């Protein structure tokens, strides 16, 4: 692993995000699969074979930054899209199988539908604070775009634009 990766892995562990650090270390240790021509004993007709090679420095940084971007930038955006889908008034309608008691309380169709996550204690789980969405997320986007090995413009092509996070 490069010095930069070792530093980032250490930062993740310090921030109690060790599960991401473990995932990165494992992925980097596994290396990348490539297919290239291979001649057994160096003679005869070449056939294609699969090899495992270590990542280059650039590829390793792409893997690290890409992983952080997927978790910290893309996943919250995906959840937001899911919540917006559920808010669509026309999505849900009355569906009553015969065996649902006639006395079942009808839901109020004017009340917006909400999507959430419940913790082990049965209480709604806090996912992102306003501070994360307003401050941390755009800041992370900026930092990760600076760390992206192929430059800021290329980062924009892969991950949603900065304006989405402001």
């Amino acid at each position, binding site marked *: 692993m490069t010095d930069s990766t070792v530093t980032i892995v250490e930062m993740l562990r310090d921030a109690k995000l060790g599960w991401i650090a473990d995932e990165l270390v494992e992925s980097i240790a596994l290396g990348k699969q490539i297919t290239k021509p291979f001649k057994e004993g160096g003679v005869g007709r070449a056939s294609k074979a699969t090899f495992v090679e270590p990542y280059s420095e650039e590829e390793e940084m792409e893997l690290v930054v890409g992983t952080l971007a997927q978790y910290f930038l893309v996943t919250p955006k995906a959840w937001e899209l899911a919540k917006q889908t559920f808010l669509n008034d026309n999505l849900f*309608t009355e569906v009553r199988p015969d065996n649902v008691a006639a006395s079942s309380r009808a839901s109020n169709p004017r009340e917006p539908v909400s999507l959430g996550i*419940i913790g082990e204690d049965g209480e709604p789980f806090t996912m992102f604070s306003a501070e994360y969405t307003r401050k941390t997320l755009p800041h992370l986007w900026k930092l990760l775009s600076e760390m992206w090995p192929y430059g800021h413009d290329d980062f924009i092509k892969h991950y949603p634009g900065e304006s989405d996070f402001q």
Partner: protein
Amino acid sequence: MTSRLQAELRMALASIGTSAPIFLATAGVDRLFEGFVLSCLIRALIKNGARLEIYDGRINPSPSRTLNLRRAPGRIYDDIPGIGFIMVEFEGRFFEIHTDLRVSPANESRPRNTSKRAERIEAS
């Protein structure tokens, strides 16, 4: 990576535990993605003519306007009002869409009342 970038990244990562606790365990992030996949599924069902309604997670479920996903896998027959499912009517048949179900031995199975006719779909 410059020392300035290192310092800023360290601070940003350190703040995640309090500003976005969902990231402290892999299970949390899985649920977020699951919610997204579920939203894609319901959009596809509606596009294909299905009708959908959210129900709560009681033994005798009632229609609800809130759908909560479990943070950890649970059993389909647990009487947890806060955790619901989606009832679907598609081509004259009823289905239930659940997320995060734990597979148990057959002798533990205890169907919920609406499930006598509805078939179950594990969305994740």
